[in-house]
């Protein structure tokens, strides 16, 4: 991966993931009848050269520079300068993803109402370093808002969790 400067490597991986998705998409398309796959295939095959071109703009080559200038009137270096410079470590990101995944998993297992205050409280207390009182207060307010608006006023039966679905009424 010497071709691609280190700071652009994460982007390259992202592009690779997209490329693989598109290849998979094209493969699946061939399982459908001609009428069903014509348009998707056109889209899929258009994607591949575009992705490859974008890949080239990430490299430290002359051709990459030229492509970048042609499409965006900026060199890759200028784009690097424009980019958001926030420090983003993969570890930090994974932790946030995990929180969100746990939230959705919790909703799936136990339902919205129990998980809402737990999530709000935990986030504020452990990520935001708020006091227990403040965290509890926000947790309660969010729960009250959701409960009153959705369950009472709108008469939604908010999802109660897969456990309730199986063992409940």
């Amino acid at each position, binding site marked *: 991966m010497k071709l691609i400067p280190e700071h652009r490597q994460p982007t390259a991986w992202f592009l690779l993931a997209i490329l693989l998705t598109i290849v998979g998409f094209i493969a699946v398309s061939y399982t459908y*009848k001609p009428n069903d796959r014509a348009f*998707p295939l056109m889209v899929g095959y258009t994607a591949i050269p575009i992705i490859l071109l974008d890949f080239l703009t990430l490299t430290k080559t002359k051709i990459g520079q030229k492509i970048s200038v042609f499409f965006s009137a900026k060199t890759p270096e200028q784009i690097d300068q424009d980019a958001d410079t*926030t420090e983003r470590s993969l570890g930090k990101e994974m932790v946030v993803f995990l929180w969100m995944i746990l939230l959705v998993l919790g909703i799936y297992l136990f339902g919205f109402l129990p998980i809402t205050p737990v999530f709000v409280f935990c986030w504020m207390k452990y990520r935001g370093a708020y006091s227990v009182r403040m965290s509890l207060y926000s947790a309660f307010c969010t729960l009250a808002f959701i409960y009153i608006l959705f369950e009472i006023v709108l008469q939604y039966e908010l999802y109660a969790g897969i456990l309730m679905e199986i063992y409940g009424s």
Partner: protein
Amino acid sequence: MFESLIIGIDNLFSLNSILLLMAGSAVGLLFGAIPGLGGTTAVALMIPLTFGMEPFQAIILMGGIMAATSTGGSVSAILLNTPGIAPNAATTFDGYPLAKQGKAGMAIGAGATASALGGVVGIISLVAVIPIMKEIVLLFTPPEFFMLAIFGLCAIAVSSGDRLLQGLITAIIGLVVGFVGLYDITGTVRYSMGIPLLEDGIKLVPALIGLFAISEMINLAVKGGSIAEDTSSIAISRVSDGVKQVFKNWSTMLVGSGYGTFIGAVPGVGGTVAAFLSYSTQVQRDPDPDVEYGKGNIKGVIAPESANNAKDGGSLIPTLAFGIPGSAETAVFLGVLILHGIEPGQKLLVENEPLVFTLVVALTVSVIFATLVVLALAKYMAMLTMVSVNVLIPTVSVIALVGAYALHTEIGDVVIALIFAIIGYFMIRFNYPRVTFTIALVLGTLTELNFDQTMQIHDGDMTVFLTRWLSVTLLILTVLSLGFPTFRKKVRERNRRREAEASK
């Protein structure tokens, strides 16, 4: 007609009606602002309340709701980068950057004012075209729909700014996502991977909630701070500045309203497309902006907001001409009329003209009322951008997920929102535009379906696109819209070179 208008006004101006209208507007604002709920849900949920009412009262309540939702939706689009309803998606592109710069108050002010004016333009157009509205609806057949969709897709090129290549890639992903589910032409379920939830396709609202709201929360969690990066300017940005901006940029507002009315009148296209087209047209009309689009240009808020409110009037055109709803909301609204024993369609206009005008008056007053409420509260709502992220993230994430669930009471939609949140986060991180993804997702199936329908109708003859005047007009517009910015750029470059030479 004039007499009916008087009856309509008279119907509205009793204490009871005004209260109903205000209640409707309040509900509409709230439902518009909470992502996932939207006007369709609001109208559907209020149906039982209308049972004890006179038909005109039900119409006033429903009109109040319908007119206010997209105004409410603009607030969350600006403050939280979350389109309250799908047509507000285009408002996020410049609205949220403004909020980040601490100018949320101005953006909300401009959005709300554009909404009110756009709404009024839409309603006036509705009344104006009543005599010829049938012809307008009949103008659009599948070849025209196809060309309109292509015209919309070309907005991708202008909306991605200096990230054209990347914009194309995300657009393709949007198209791919749009292919998932039942294809109405062949009745085949495609790309569902055997998951029943995906058989009906990936729904727009949960996807948008993930892509915009939750991904932004993840981004904030990684970055820290508050939404407004520059909290010092919040006090300076005034709501009234936003109002003034709309009057200053009146042509932007008018063009947006035009798009809204026109596209609203075409059944099956909808406010989201209208807002996108209005936005991209604005970007094209203004090649040398004082602030780059996508980085907080106020005109990028005015254009879509005037369009998505004007479409309320527009979408009533097919409703009144043929009894065919122009949007999901009007579909439910038609249901309400039927429940009250009123048969929609041309008969409604012939036999119940006063009721139609009651609706017209209710829509007008409501859209203005909703705007006044938003303007009055904008200053306080803008404070939300100063709230610390660690309060905002958990509360907004949870409420957004409830919204993703509520639309179809489908837990799988929550998972979809999460998946799109992660995709959306990577798009933010690697600077891949989300705008183009959304445009492609909305227009992709429309393009494919209308192309295939055209081929079925005209036995595979491609020349129909060139032999129908409206189709050709749309094609020329598309080519112009692609070529015009390049042409202008070339001219500007040449002028610059000349200046440089002259100064040597």
